[in-house]
């Protein structure tokens, strides 16, 4: 049975990895600069999805306008949260911003629960997305869009960071905040940009997830966990590593529970465990992650 389902498992893994990658990118960016893991980042995914639901389904806006508005608002919300909750604790010990982000995560989930209720929402009520058959697997239009959009955004972000003025400032800040400040880079402004970009990316991921699956107030939590695993696996400050880590996790999950070994397959209850198991194994041999740099290399570079 394994041979016949391999192509489908591969595509399932790529789709999952694409979504995790979009969320992981923002998380990796934030960690690289602000040096803390924003536990509320997954909630920006949820926020983007619900904002889009409000504009597109409840208010009946055209789809393009609804997407643009939801993504921009998610980005703006990220900036506001950064100013209100994270900036005041930027200089505090690492545990403090992490706890603040956990609190923000719970607050956002509760707000959405209060406003929209617990019922699962759907963006394409009852509409079946047509599946196309290619070389042993079936992929729907929406899944093609997810992969194309995710990969395009990843490439655009890489180009932005490499060639744009703000992108260079972000990279400078990631190397050293103090030196960047001395060189005249406005740290607060750059961090705001960062949160805007990261939250907007998460918002886009939320909209894509919403089209592919469903919306519920807790949808961000599992994505945060997967994105966290992806960035640790890939090398916490390396955005390319975050993307690679995301795809590794997506593929590992689907192959892990999909394949049979001697007539048996891994029970679904271990699905999340597979991702973390792989993360642990990789870190045992490569503590800096797949694409991360060792601390000695970083010191030599400085």
């Amino acid at each position, binding site marked *: *049975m394994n041979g016949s*389902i391999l192509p*489908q*498992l591969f595509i*399932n893994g790529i*789709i*999952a990895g694409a979504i995790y990658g979009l969320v992981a990118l923002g998380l990796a960016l934030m960690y690289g600069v602000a040096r803390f893991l924003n536990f509320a980042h997954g909630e920006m995914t949820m926020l983007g999805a619900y904002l889009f639901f409000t504009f597109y389904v409840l208010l009946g806006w055209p789809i393009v306008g609804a997407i643009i508005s939801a993504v921009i608002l998610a980005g703006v919300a990220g900036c506001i949260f950064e100013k*209100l909750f994270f900036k*005041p604790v930027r200089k505090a010990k690492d545990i403090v911003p992490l706890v603040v982000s956990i609190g923000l995560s719970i*607050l956002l989930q*509760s*707000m959405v*629960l*209060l*406003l929209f*209720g*617990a*019922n*699962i929402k*759907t963006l394409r*009520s*009852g*509409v*079946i*997305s*047509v*599946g196309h*058959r290619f070389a042993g697997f*079936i992929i*729907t239009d929406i899944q093609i869009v997810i992969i194309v959009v995710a990969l395009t955004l990843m490439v655009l972000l890489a180009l932005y960071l490499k060639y744009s003025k703000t992108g260079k400032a972000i990279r400078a800040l990631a190397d050293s905040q103090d030196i960047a400040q001395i060189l005249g880079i406005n740290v607060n402004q750059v961090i705001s940009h960062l949160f805007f970009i990261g939250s907007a990316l998460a918002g886009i991921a939320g909209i894509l*997830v919403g089209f*592919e*699956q*469903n919306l*519920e*107030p*807790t*949808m961000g939590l*599992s994505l945060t966990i997967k994105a966290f695993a992806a960035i640790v696996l890939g090398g916490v400050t390396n955005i390319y590593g975050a993307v690679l880590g995301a795809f590794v996790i997506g593929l590992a999950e*689907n192959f892990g*529970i*999909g394949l049979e070994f001697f007539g048996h*397959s891994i*029970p*679904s*209850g271990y*699905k*999340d465990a597979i991702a973390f198991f792989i993360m642990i194994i990789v870190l045992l041999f490569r503590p800096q992650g797949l694409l991360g740099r060792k601390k000695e290399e970083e010191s030599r570079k400085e």
Partner: protein
Amino acid sequence: MKKILTAITILLIISPLAGCKLRKDNPQNIDREAAIKVGGILIMTGKGSNWGVQALRGAQIANEEIGSSLSLIVEDSQYDTKLALSAFEKLTSVDHVDGIVSMGSGMTLAIAPKLEDKKVIAINAGAVSPKLSGASKYLFNIVPLSTQDSKFIADQAYQKLDYRRVAMISSNDEASAGATQVFQEEFTKLGGVISADEKFLSTDNDYRTYLLKTQKENPDAIFTVGTSLGAVIKQAREMGIKQPFISNSPFELPDNITQGGQAVEGVVYSNMKLEEDSPEFQTFQKKYRDKFKTEPSLYSYTAYDCVKLLYAYLSDCKKDLECVRNKLLTNRFSGLTSNNIIFDEKGEIQSAMQLKTVKDGQFVKYEE
């Protein structure tokens, strides 16, 4: 100072919003002086909340009809056993309820052993695990458990629908485990073959890999139970899976049609035969639609009956526990779900079952 002011401002914005929304969604008639107090441990958030919200609404209509002599106090178990136990403690120790309406197999099983200690009767409005049978002498199940429900659909799948090879896909929870176990036992006893048994996590939203594995040995049909079935079936159709789906009573949830749309057309499932022709049933449906602008589901009717039943017997018995238990075992109560609600020693109800299906976006009786 600035930080304190910011924090206060945020709280001032959030609090009225929270208060208004909570009051709108969960109006509770907590009259501490009411003669009879009935508690509810329902699933109102998270996976399974679709069932819980339906039950809450049915209970609320019963509460309104009974009036101020009943106080209905509902707690959210969030589909979590630990929270269900906390809710139970609060309802019994703080609110001193006289009876409880419960939902969720895991949650109901968790509170069952404590009913005798706390001297309170509970009626399960929606859980179907076979383990609930005889779980406590003070626990009664107004819905047929999997021993009836899943057995019926297994029997019909083999005898009436002529399926010989069936794959199963279900959510990894107590109720679904019981349902699939009973289905498998009955179906194989009749001579059928179970070709796959896939379980997805209740936190999953991507079911494709599990669905892929149901296709081995090319089954005649797929038996699916648990949460988010509309989404499961829709993803199956998008993957090109063409086999018919069969399910059990909890499938009848309007959200499954909202999520699944065209994909769930033709799904055949087992269901309690309700008193649909009775004037009380029609009146309830009209009240429900007018108040909530949506269709009721099975758990709206069961929760309504639970509240009415508890109120009636607790009032008659002046809250005497043994008297209420005795009435539940010997008296026949007429409700929306049956005009013959009476329980056996194991707390089970014998229910007439029927096959239903989805046609043109509606749940209708199945006709060949």
